[in-house]
């Protein structure tokens, strides 16, 4: 801290010096020195200040005005920036925290609800369960007689509840159509993709198979087996586990493996746009013709006229076998079509 200019002359200082052992003469001399030095420095400062002041006075006035304006502007800008950034910095943070808390809460609520519900469920496999009623009894006892299918599930979904499965097949078909609307390449009138689309998709053609020997050899061995197994599952749907949907999915997976190994050019020989349209629509139409009337008869099925045959034979169970084949074809086509649409927007 700097002492005041008249500190040396103050009463307190004088007292201190007196205690320290200074004489009165000393004090007077010191006071004189002080006065002289003070006057000198004052004069110097005065001269300097006068010149400086005159120079600066004009500049200062302008400068101060400008600086004030600048400062005001700066402050305003900073305030605006802060105001603008607030939601970015704090709003998102708050929202994120709230979101996390609400997500955890929602999860906890759903989990507790499900657990409480599960705790009320009857014991698994107990004979007193409410679902073990006359409906199940009827299906178990007379299912084989009514439908001729050894596999009770196939008898259920393709005979008793065939119109449900009809709806399911159509759901799958509609899903394929929707994916097609979303992902299909637009074609010009000559049947070639438009230029912009082609440029976009050209990048993806890099992913066409590059004659991978290992993949091709394994595909050569596996694809026939997979497709044969799929056909077996479809045809044996009324005798053993499986049926149209699962067999169709297996065939579709086999086709996808084939395309991966040998490319779209070879697969196009069987599965092109025209064939796809025919192959997937005709079975659906056949199915709708065979079982569509159920909507009008209240799910009571009529006699198809096809003999039931002996249960256990491949040619038995009336309409179930052809319906299984229909569903299998639709599902296989749809799976393959999904793959081609995802891969390059069309067959």
């Amino acid at each position, binding site marked *: 801290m700097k002492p005041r200019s008249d500190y040396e002359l103050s009463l307190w200082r004088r007292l201190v010096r007196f205690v320290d052992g200074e004489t009165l003469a000393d004090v007077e001399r010191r006071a004189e020195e002080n006065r002289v030095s003070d006057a000198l420095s004052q004069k110097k400062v005065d001269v300097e200040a006068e010149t400086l002041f005159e120079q600066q006075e004009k500049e200062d006035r302008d400068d101060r005005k400008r600086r004030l304006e600048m400062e005001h502007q700066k402050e305003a800008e900073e305030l605006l920036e802060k105001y603008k950034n607030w939601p970015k910095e704090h709003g998102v943070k708050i929202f994120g925290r709230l979101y996390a808390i609400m997500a955890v809460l929602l999860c906890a609520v759903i989990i507790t609800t499900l657990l409480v519900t599960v705790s009320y469920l009857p014991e698994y496999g107990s004979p007193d369960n409410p679902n073990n009623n006359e409906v199940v009894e009827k299906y178990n006892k007379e299912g084989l007689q009514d439908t001729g299918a050894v596999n009770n599930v196939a008898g259920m979904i393709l005979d008793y509840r065939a119109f449900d499965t009809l709806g399911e097949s159509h759901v799958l078909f509609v899903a394929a159509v929707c994916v097609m609307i979303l992902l299909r390449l637009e074609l010009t009138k000559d049947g070639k993709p438009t230029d912009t689309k082609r440029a976009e998709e050209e990048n993806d053609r890099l992913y066409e198979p590059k004659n991978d020997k290992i993949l091709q050899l394994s595909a050569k061995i596996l694809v026939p087996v997979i497709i044969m197994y799929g056909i077996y599952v479809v045809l044996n749907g009324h005798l053993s*586990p*499986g049926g149209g949907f*699962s067999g169709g*999915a*297996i065939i579709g*997976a086999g086709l*996808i493996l084939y395309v991966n190994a040998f490319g779209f050019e070879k697969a196009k020989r069987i599965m092109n746009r025209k064939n796809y349209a025919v192959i997937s629509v005709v079975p659906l139409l056949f199915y709708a013709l065979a079982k569509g009337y159920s909507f009008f008869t209240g799910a009571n099925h009529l006699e198809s006229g096809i003999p039931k045959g002996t249960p256990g034979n491949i040619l038995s169970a009336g309409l179930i076998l052809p319906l299984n084949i229909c569903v299998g074809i639709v599902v296989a086509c749809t799976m393959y079509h999904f*793959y081609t649409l995802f*891969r390059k927007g069309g067959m």
Partner: protein
Amino acid sequence: MEILEMILLSFLVVCAVSVALSKNLLTSIVIFMAYSVIMSIIWMILESPDLAITEAAVGAGVTSVLFYITLKKIHAMKGEEDDEAEE
């Protein structure tokens, strides 16, 4: 059989949690496939082979393939750029 069921069910829970927690999308898909396979074994144990076949074909097969293609399309697979650069 009871012990096997317990092990499979605990695997199921572990798979379900780790799918959500894994940072890499490719890992998520592989874990999802494992989930489907375990689920199809559980369907077998619950005496519904029809569902088991469907689960194995659709869940572990076709769905995962579609996921792979999507990942490739959005360039989310690691090391893919190197593959392209080599050609």
